């Protein structure tokens, strides 16, 4: 019995991925969850973990190959297929090799055809724009269309070519001491391309979310006085372990506890139905130089605040190094975006489908407030705004959810017991 390993979908709008590197050789043993390959998506390189167990009988695509999501890249089985092959006489093996080469060529051709079809389907571009993009090695994924209905038209491509040419000139002048102009241009090309790739990806995801997901928004002020106090106590106790709990860790903990109470906010909306997620995987927005990534801490249902802190720090580090796993990259169930460090009072986030809600938190600021005893006092106030999918939940439910988060943070003992 053999099972195919298919190009995984690592993003709700991912259509294809590139096998960057095989981590296992043909004939080696693989376990479920064991990384077998590095896959490059539009945004990052992620490890592809095997969902089958046995012997890696056959690697179907070479490193560097682009494969549509869902198409096989390797076969895992009990090893009998390899045994049979070894028993065959050499001549036949040679014939087979030749056949395989032919098949591969055919497959490549087919892949190319399919690739073109899929581009046609997902990107609206005029024939001329496609020709120009092709001639100039421009990936239409990276181009924002300004024609009717968002169609990519000639002027969009020409503008891009202009930009690239300008960049090239600047950089070439800058580095004119070296003679290797050709490779510089390639460097520049790939830089421009990568930047655009991230931008285009964000553009597509947010645009689609805004178009498809009916957002509603709720906002509240949270008094963080007690949370800050308890945080400094914890941090002083953990200092010897070199662990430092952040406000964000506390917010995460509050959100996780609240999600357990209101699991509907930990759901995903797909094809008209709401599916509950058992795992709580909290995504956190991580700002990169050229954009934004939202990786998640996997299965944090039962993590205490210390574990959360460790995990989130690790996640941030690996994000910046491009070492995320596929699951971390794609399996978030609820997101938190924190712009506190940028002195933002409050903001509203765009939900990351298929998730159904996101919490946006601003800076903690000292503000005069009226205490329950009707005294004016100075407190540490943080605004938190919930964006939620109205197809899944309603305002009243959202209000209870947000109130619970607020309650947890204002009575932070809840977070450590």
């Amino acid at each position: 019995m053999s099972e195919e390993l298919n190009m995984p979908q690592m993003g709700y709008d991912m259509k294809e991925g590139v096998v960057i590197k095989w981590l296992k050789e043909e004939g080696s043993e693989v376990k479920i969850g064991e990384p077998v390959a590095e896959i490059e998506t539009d945004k990052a390189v992620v490890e592809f973990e095997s969902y089958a167990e046995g012997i890696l009988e056959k690697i179907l695509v070479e490193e560097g190959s682009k494969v549509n999501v869902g198409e096989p890249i390797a076969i895992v089985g009990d090893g009998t297929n390899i045994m049979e092959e070894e028993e065959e006489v050499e001549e036949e093996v040679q014939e087979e090799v030749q056949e395989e080469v032919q098949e591969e060529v055919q497959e490549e051709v087919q892949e190319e055809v399919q690739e073109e079809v899929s581009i046609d389907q997902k990107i609206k571009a005029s024939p001329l724009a496609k020709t120009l993009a092709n001639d100039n090695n421009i990936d239409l994924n990276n181009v924002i269309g300004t024609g009717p209905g968002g169609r990519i038209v000639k002027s969009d491509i020409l503008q891009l070519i202009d930009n690239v040419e300008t960049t090239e000139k600047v950089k070439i002048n800058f580095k004119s001491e070296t003679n290797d102009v050709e490779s510089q241009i390639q460097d520049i090309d790939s830089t421009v391309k990568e930047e655009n790739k991230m931008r285009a990806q964000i553009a597509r995801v947010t645009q689609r979310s805004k178009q498809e997901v009916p957002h509603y928004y709720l906002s509240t002020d949270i008094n963080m006085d007690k949370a800050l106090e308890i945080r400094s106590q914890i941090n002083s106790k953990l200092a010897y372990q070199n662990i430092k709990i952040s406000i964000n860790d506390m917010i995460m903990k509050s959100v996780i506890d609240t999600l357990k109470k209101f699991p509907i906010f930990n759901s995903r909306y797909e094809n008209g139905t709401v599916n509950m997620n058992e795992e709580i995987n909290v995504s956190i927005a991580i700002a990169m130089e050229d954009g934004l990534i939202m990786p998640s801490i996997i299965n944090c249902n039962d993590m205490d605040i210390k574990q959360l802190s460790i995990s989130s720090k690790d996640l941030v580090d690996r994000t910046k190094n491009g070492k995320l796993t596929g699951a971390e990259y794609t399996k978030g169930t609820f997101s938190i975006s924190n712009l506190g460090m940028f002195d933002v009072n409050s903001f509203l986030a765009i939900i990351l489908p298929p998730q159904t809600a996101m919490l946006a938190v601003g800076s903690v600021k000292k503000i005069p407030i009226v205490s329950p005893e009707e005294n004016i006092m100075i407190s540490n106030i943080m605004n938190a705004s919930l964006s939620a999918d109205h197809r899944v939940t309603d305002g009243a439910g959202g209000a209870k959810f947000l109130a619970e988060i607020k309650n947890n943070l204002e009575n932070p003992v809840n977070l450590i017991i």
Partner: protein
Amino acid sequence: MAELTIRESLNKALREALDNNENVFIMGEDIGMYGGPYAVTKGLLEEYGSEKIMDTPISESGFVGAAIGASMAGMKPIVEIMTINFSLLAMDQIVNHAAKIHYMSDGQLSVPIIIRTVTGAGGRMGATHSQSFEGWYASVPGLKVVSPSNAIDALGLFRSAINENNPVIFVEHSMLYGVKNEIPDQYYETPIGLPKVLEKGNDLTLIAWSGMIPLAKLVSTELNKRNINTEIIDLRSLNPIDFELIFESVKKTNKVVILDEYWETGSFGSYISSVIQEKCFDYLDGPVGVINSLNVPMPYSAELEDKVIPNIDRALSKIKELFGF
């Protein structure tokens, strides 16, 4: 240089034909005593006599067939069918016979006739008198179809048609007879099959013919106000068509809209569109647009007819829809 209307230039063309070729004669309904329904043949009966200028019964199949037969026997008949709507009564003669005799006889016989007829809407003539069937005839191998939009081409195309040894459907537009142009004094011919660039531009190609040319100019003027420079191509001939000039224009502007007075379904404009998208696909920066009359029999009321025929509002909104300007 003399300034002539299309009506006058055609009258001049007919006189030339009668003067230069003894085999030429003209036949049609009310072209003699009455002076021609659109007055194109005015004065010819008095000058050339009833042998050359033959009034016919209202018998379209009969006299068109007679012209075909006479041409096969060495004559050069010019037939006037009062309107293209009536030509349907002679469709058998035109399509089954005129277009095919040369081919079916493998060149033994030929049919060198000119059928002049009048196309188009706009005259508040109602559903049966406002149709534009030139595209039908243009689709038939063996026929040549021309459709001038100005007096210069009317004269030039007629001179070419007279020298043709093939059946030529010479389509005049009922609303254009008064269009005036300076006619060059020296003799010239307008080649059948060669479109003409009426206005040069880089942003959008407008293709039209006959009664749609004035609209094309109107659209161009409006777009010019927004700094969109249109190139207007007057097809002049519907069969044959030298597409090279069209392709050149499309490769330059990357955007095309075709104006066609016929209905939307199966229009000649759609044929032009299909050729362009097939031959210039990689040069197109948007869909090839075709603007037609709406798919209804032409209503009589002026209020309604103006909205059914392609008009400036519809053209501009279509262009905006297709190209965003």
